[in-house]
């Protein structure tokens, strides 16, 4: 027998093959189709934006951890996810320095200050967006453009080709409306409309979402309860539900941001409550709120409610139902 000491660890001695860095890397992979779509539709500025987001977030994590002499955790890929998402939820033509600073805020204040990966209360990327919107509203809410590719497209007649308004803004301003907005369905699905960098192409987002589902990284509980709630509430208010589902950041938010583990409830019951809550808030903000779009704020508000949901929505133990009978 070799004379080196035996190793003793607690059971189990077998571990699954998914670990946190792999998981985060898979999310990055899942986001790529939407990033590509964003660059395709919005051009080089979008690429610069994505790079700035990642640089801002990963850089902030590196620098802050070095400064506070803590172990550097950029190897877990979570800052990359946040970086991509920060860029993806901002307008494609926003100045790069805004993307970088939003990333620094997301990582420095929202994540690391709270203890780093796993301890943040609010979704860093969305907090970064909310920060940019409130800090530099003039710059951060006006970088929307209509993809050049659709100029002259038949369906877009009547829409000013250089307008900076997204479909939801136009809806809010009463420029478009009614129950049937089917002419928007295809562009919204493919992504050639104005909107945040990563939110416009439902198709690309769904490809990524299917990948995450297949890898079992996310479940459908949050996205489905979220999306269905938005459809139902907007339909109740006499709006076109499909338009609402496809527009704004709903698909991006529902599949990639409301599902962020750290800031969503931990069990099935809580996740469904969370999804429904996000759905109601999103619909109400879109319909009555001050902003044309409500995904970011509704997820942030529900993030705040997560500890409370976790407290009250508890799973039934094995055998518990029968115990009462």
């Amino acid at each position, binding site marked *: 027998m070799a004379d080196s000491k035996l190793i003793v660890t607690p059971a189990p001695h077998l571990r699954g093959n998914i670990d946190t860095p792999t998981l985060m890397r898979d999310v990055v992979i899942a986001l790529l189709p939407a990033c590509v779509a964003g660059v395709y539709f919005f051009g080089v500025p979008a690429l610069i934006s994505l790079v700035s987001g990642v640089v801002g977030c990963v850089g902030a994590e590196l620098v802050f951890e070095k400064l*506070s002499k803590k172990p550097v955790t950029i190897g877990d890929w979570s800052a990359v996810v946040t970086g991509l998402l920060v860029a993806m939820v901002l307008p494609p033509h926003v100045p790069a320095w805004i993307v970088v600073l939003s990333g620094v805020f997301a990582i420095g*204040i*929202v994540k690391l*200050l*709270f*203890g*780093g990966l796993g*301890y943040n*209360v*609010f979704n860093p990327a969305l*907090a970064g967006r*909310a*920060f940019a919107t*409130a800090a530099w509203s003039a710059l951060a809410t006006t970088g929307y453009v209509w993809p050049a590719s659709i100029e002259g497209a038949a369906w877009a007649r009547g829409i000013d080709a250089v307008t900076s308004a997204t479909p939801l803004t136009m809806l809010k301003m009463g420029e478009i409306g009614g129950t049937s907005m089917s002419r928007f369905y295809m562009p919204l699905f493919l992504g050639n409309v104005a909107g945040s960098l990563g939110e416009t192409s439902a198709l690309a987002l769904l490809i990524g979402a299917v990948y995450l589902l297949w890898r079992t990284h996310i479940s459908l509980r949050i996205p489905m309860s979220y999306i269905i709630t938005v459809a139902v509430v907007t339909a109740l*208010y006499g709006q076109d539900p499909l338009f609402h589902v496809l527009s704004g950041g709903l698909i991006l938010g529902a599949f990639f941001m409301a599902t962020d583990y750290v800031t969503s409830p931990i069990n099935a019951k809580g996740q469904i409550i969370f999804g429904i809550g996000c759905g109601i*808030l999103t619909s*109400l*903000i879109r*319909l*009555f*709120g*001050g*902003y044309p779009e*409500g995904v*970011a*704020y*509704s997820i*942030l*508000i529900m*993030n*705040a*409610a997560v*500890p*409370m949901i*976790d*407290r009250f929505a508890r799973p039934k133990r094995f055998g518990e139902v029968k115990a009462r009978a």
Partner: protein
Amino acid sequence: MKQLLVILFSQALVNNYMLARILGTCPFIGVSQQFETATGMSLAVVFVMTMASVITWLVQHFILNPLGMAYLQTVSFILVIAALVQLIEMVIKKNSPGLYRALGIYLPLITTNCAVLGVAIINISSNYNLIESAVSGAAGGLGWGLAIMLFAAIRERQRLAPISQAMQGFPIALVTTGLLAMAFLGFSGFDVARFIGL
């Protein structure tokens, strides 16, 4: 009725006393370490804010206005609020020890809660009638209570987080409050009237 609902929603969510108006920070940060205490505090605040709204409305409209002494608003309001809170505390301490434990111990803390005097002054400047004032007070309390309950649940989770020494306690609590306020920006510009109108 609809007007009351409008007041309820806007005071509780859109113009949340804590997150949008910055009133009542000290007890918000101070009494939110535990979810249970935060709940007790919320109840007490709802109660006191409602009561203060009603009593100060009466003082304003039956004493200060008729006598043309609006400049005594601050003095008379705070006197009335402080004295009443103290009275109520004594009464429930004697008559209902259970309620006192759940609620009473928070009462003295509330006398110096900006939100209570704030709601009284805001009611008057918004020209609310008596019932509107009462609803406004209750709604303000509910909004504050909602905020502190969310916050307390968050803080319970934060106890385990490896937050750096210097930021532990009040500092991180303030930053959390800031982010909570940022989330609540989602309610800003919310057209409550149109929402209720439906």
